[in-house]
Each structure stands twice: as C-alpha cells, then as structure tokens.
C-alpha cells in the first residue's frame, strides 16, 4: 500500500504544477458538476416551481384540468336560477345547498367557488344570512372564491356583501356566464404556477434542506390514496403549518394529484 502511495507521489512529483492541477482538478470538478447537475434527483427538489414544471405543467390544461378539480357550491334557495344540469353535463362538480346553517361554515369553506345569495339561505338568519355568511367564509378560508348572486344590488344595505365578493352576477345566470365565472375564479385559485410561486414565497424562510424534505413529503403523500384532509398532519417538515400555508398546500396537493394520477 505504501509502495502504491510512494509511486503515485513520484508520478505527481515528476509532473509540473499545471499538469497536477489538471490531473487532480478535472475529476474533482467533474464529480462536483455531476453532483450539481443531478442535485434534484439525488437530494430532491427544493422549489415548488421546479416541482410544478417537472410534474404538473405538461399535464395541465386549464379548462379540462379545472373541470376535474374544482368543487363548486351553489348556495341559493332558488337553484333554478342556475344552469346546474348544464354545468354538471360539462363535467363540473357542482353541489346545491338550498339552505345552510352557520354551523356548516367549515364544510362550506372547503369549496373552491361558491355562488352565494343573500336572502333565505341561512336557517339561523333568513333575512340577512348571506351577509353574515360571507365574512365568516372569508375568515375560514381566505383563498375561497365567492361570487355574490342576487338581484338586490339596488339595496344600499347590501353594499358590503357585494363589495366583499370576488365577483357579482345577476340572476338568472346562464350556462356560458356561469362557466366563465367558475373558470376565471378557479384559475386564480388553482393555477399551478401561481400556486407554486405563492408557496415558494410562503416557504422562503425555510432552509433548502427543510424545503427539500417538505417537497419530498408532499410527493410521497400525493402518491398515496389517503384523503387530503389527513395531509396537514402528515407534512411535518415545516413544523406546525400556518393556516395560510395549509390552505395553499391543500390546493397544491389536489393539483399535484391530478397531474400524477
């Protein structure tokens, strides 16, 4: 062994410094370059944008993908004012709630897009239920998109309701209009690049290693069939998730699962 080392040393001693630099530097540099080039494959992806470009972008087609993912709720005592059948036939997941209770807020807040009327929809408050429901939904899930649907735009006491909504439509809403509203609102919420950019911003305080672990956990969870409601408990890399980050991650998980399914 010592002979081998001595021989090796003599080889280097006999060469000039430049030759030595090339002889030693090239393999080390090459190894480092390979490590850098395949760092994502070896250590895992560290940004949501990269993960999105690798796994989601190619499989994402705005209208079709949205139809598969988006959950729409129509909260109106007169659902005939909505083209529910046409929407369902077009492939949207639409649920109708003729009346809700203020206790149902957590469940309602899970929808991506809610068409919300003012009157007659909340059992606990028939007259102004929608007015009270909207801010509570906003509080429960600030990412949810709400379209206020009422012909009461003339009523100055309802101004806050309409101003708080993401969009306002008159009833009856025709199928084309309804589809346009759903698509534009849900794309603002579920567009993968937008989501990834927001998530990268939201996790920018984490170090690269933690982000790699976080993304690894997400990918692993996406491949399972576990319900998304269990995800927040399974993602431990970033510690206790803030409500904002939880909502973003839930939306991202749905998009990721759609892409890898």
């Amino acid at each position, binding site marked *: 062994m010592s002979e081998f080392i001595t021989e090796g040393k003599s080889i280097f001693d006999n060469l000039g410094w430049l030759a030595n630099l090339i002889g030693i530097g090239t393999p080390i540099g090459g190894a480092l370059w390979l490590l850098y080039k395949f760092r994502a494959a070896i250590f895992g992806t560290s940004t949501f944008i990269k993960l999105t470009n690798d796994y989601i972008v190619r499989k994402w087609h705005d209208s079709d993908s949205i139809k598969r993912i988006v959950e729409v709720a129509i909260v109106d005592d007169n659902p005939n*004012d909505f083209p529910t059948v046409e929407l369902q036939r077009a492939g949207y997941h639409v649920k109708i709630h003729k009346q809700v209770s203020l206790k149902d807020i957590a469940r309602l807040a899970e929808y991506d897009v809610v068409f919300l009327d003012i009157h007659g929809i909340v059992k606990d408050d028939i007259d102004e239920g929608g007015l009270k429901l909207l801010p509570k939904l906003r509080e429960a899930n600030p990412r949810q998109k709400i379209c*206020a649907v009422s*012909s*009461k*735009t*003339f*009523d*100055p*006491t*309802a*101004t806050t309701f*309409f*101003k708080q*909504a*993401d*969009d*306002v*439509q*008159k*009833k*009856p809403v*025709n199928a084309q209009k309804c589809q346009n509203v759903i698509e534009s609102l849900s794309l603002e919420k579920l567009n993968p690049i937008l989501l990834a950019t927001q998530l990268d911003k939201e996790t920018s305080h984490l170090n690269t290693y933690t982000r790699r672990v976080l993304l690894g956990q997400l990918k692993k969870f996406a491949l399972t069939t576990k319900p998304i409601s269990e995800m927040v408990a399974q993602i431990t890399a970033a510690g206790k998730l803030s409500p904002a980050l939880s909502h973003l991650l839930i939306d991202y998980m749905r998009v990721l699962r759609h892409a890898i399914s």
Partner: protein
Amino acid sequence: MQLVESLLTGAIHLPWPIFAAEQIFDGHNMHQSIICQKRCGKTPACASTFAVKGEGTCIYGMSYFQIQVRDDPITIIGVRSSNNPNTSTPNLKDALKGRLVTFQQVQDWANKTIGLLVAIENEFLRRQSELLDPLHDSIKLGQKIESIANRLVNTDPSKSLEEQIDRAPPDLKSLVKASGLLADSFDLLTIYFNPAAASFGRKTYLSLHGLLKKLVSILSNPDPTEENSIPVKIFLNGDCHRNVSVYDSFKLVPFALISNAVKYSADGRVRVNIFDRAGIIEVSVESVGPLIEPEELGLIFNKRFRGKWAKKVALGSGVGLYLAKTVADANGISIHASSIKQNSSSKDKPLATNRFSFEISG
C-alpha cells in the same frame, strides 16, 4: 345626515359654543363668551386654521378645542382648558370662570354625535331597503325575460347576436329590444338607488363596438307615441376592434347618452361615433337638440338638473346624464359635453348640435 343639518334642527345636544361650516352654534349649557363676541364676532380667530385633534389658547387668552366629526371640522370656542388657569390672566378671570372643558369631554361628545348620525343614516338605509324590496322580483323577472328573448333570437352560433337581432322577425325583434330596454332601465334604477353598485363585481373585457351596435339596434326607432313624435334613426360611424376592461355597469354610459340624444333629437338623427386613436378609444354621441346654455354645461350631470330649453321639449326627471356620470366615474372615465348653437333656429326654441363624448383606453 350631515352634522350641520342636524345641529340646525337643535336636536343634537351642544354643551359648548362651536364653530362649524362657517357659522357659530351657541352652546345649550355654556353660552358664547363675551370676549369671543366682542373680539371675533362671527368669525373666531381660533378657527382660521384647523388641526384634526387639538387644543390651544387664542390671541385673546381664551381656550379652544378642535376635533373632526366625520367630515366636518369643529372648533369649540371660548372655553378654558386645564392648561389655561384663570389665575394667569387676571383681566380674563371672570371671562374664563365656569368654562372649564377637558379634551376627554370633547372627544366623548364627538363620539356620541357620530354615533347618532350613523344611527340616523342606518335607519334611513334600512327604511330605503324595506321600501325597495318589492323591486327585487321585478328586476329578476326583467332579467329572465331578457335572457329568454336573447335565447330565442340567438339560434345560430356562427352569427353574432347583433346580426341575428337585425335579421329576426319583427315581433321577435321588438321583444328583444323591449326586454333589453327593460333590463337596462332596471340597471339604471339600481345605480340610482345605490350608486356603489356601479363598481360591483370585477372588470371584464368587452367589445365596445359590439356594445354600441347592440345599443343602436335596441334604441333605433322607438315607439313614436312615446317621448318624441318622430322616429329616430341612429347612425354608427367608425370601427374599433379593441376590447376595453370595464365593470358590467359600463354599458349604461353609452345607453344613457344615446337614450338622451334620441329623446331630445329634433331632426330624427343621432350619430354615434367610435374612433380608435392609437390605443385611446373615443366615443361620441351627436344630435341636434335643445341648446344647453354655456353656464348649464357644468351642471348638466348633476342629479335632477335639467337644461332650461330641454324642459320645454320633453318631460324628464334629470337623472339620465347624472347616472351616466356616476357609472363613468366608477369606471374611471370622464364624459365631456358641448353644445354649439345653430344660428338658424328660433329664439324661443334654440337648437344646437349637442355632443357628449368620452375616452377610454383599450
């Protein structure tokens, strides 16, 4: 309700004399000081400048407080603050006696007054909401009729709605026009009762040329038994392929301007022009109608204002142009008006070329 209007009724309790909206309101408990009356009269020197919250001593040795009650700056005059002991100026000892006021008292009074004004306003809005409630079903029905009428005429997806309206049988055409007018009138009514509605929802892209074509089709040749005795022809000139980002209410701006021109047209012709000038789209509505006097041009968009010559031509309530301006403001657009007198017209019924225009970036 404005503070000054409420103070004038005497219903708001005023513990001290105040100066608001260029006038002095005497206090119910503490009357105006003799010093203030003698030295300042009706224009207190202390109120010449205003700090949103503050207290001070005027050049004549009396204390004053300043506070904002909603939009109104208020100065409480001729009092004594704890920073102004009545022993410091012997000649004012009597004038300052019994006039001690603290800023906390002023603040409490302002808060109670604001509370009262808000309560009055809320009660007014609640009553208005209750009175307008029956409109709800009518608006919904109007919307439904328009939707059905458009569905009936819109049978060929390869052609535009405007094209199909033009080619529809007369009865169907009338139905579409009438339902469109009904829906737009309800929309105007909505903005009239709640101007905030002009900016509800989100801005979307709209073809301005397409909108004008539809409006021209709807508003051409109205029922001659109404308003004007002659059928009016509307000419649409120019072209624009650019879309504009506007609120849903925007359509009411050209609707109100064209309706107004049709109503007052003296020769049965209204010209609607649209020009695209390097990204800025100019729309103008021109017609020959009653002269708008130069001094009226600045007032023509005020609620319930009507030009003196327009009053002689047709009945009206002076809200059409007011609503057009309300909606234009919500969309960030300014409407310009001009009226060029026609020399050939009679003195008792002067006519002019009236032009209303606005610009919007595409």
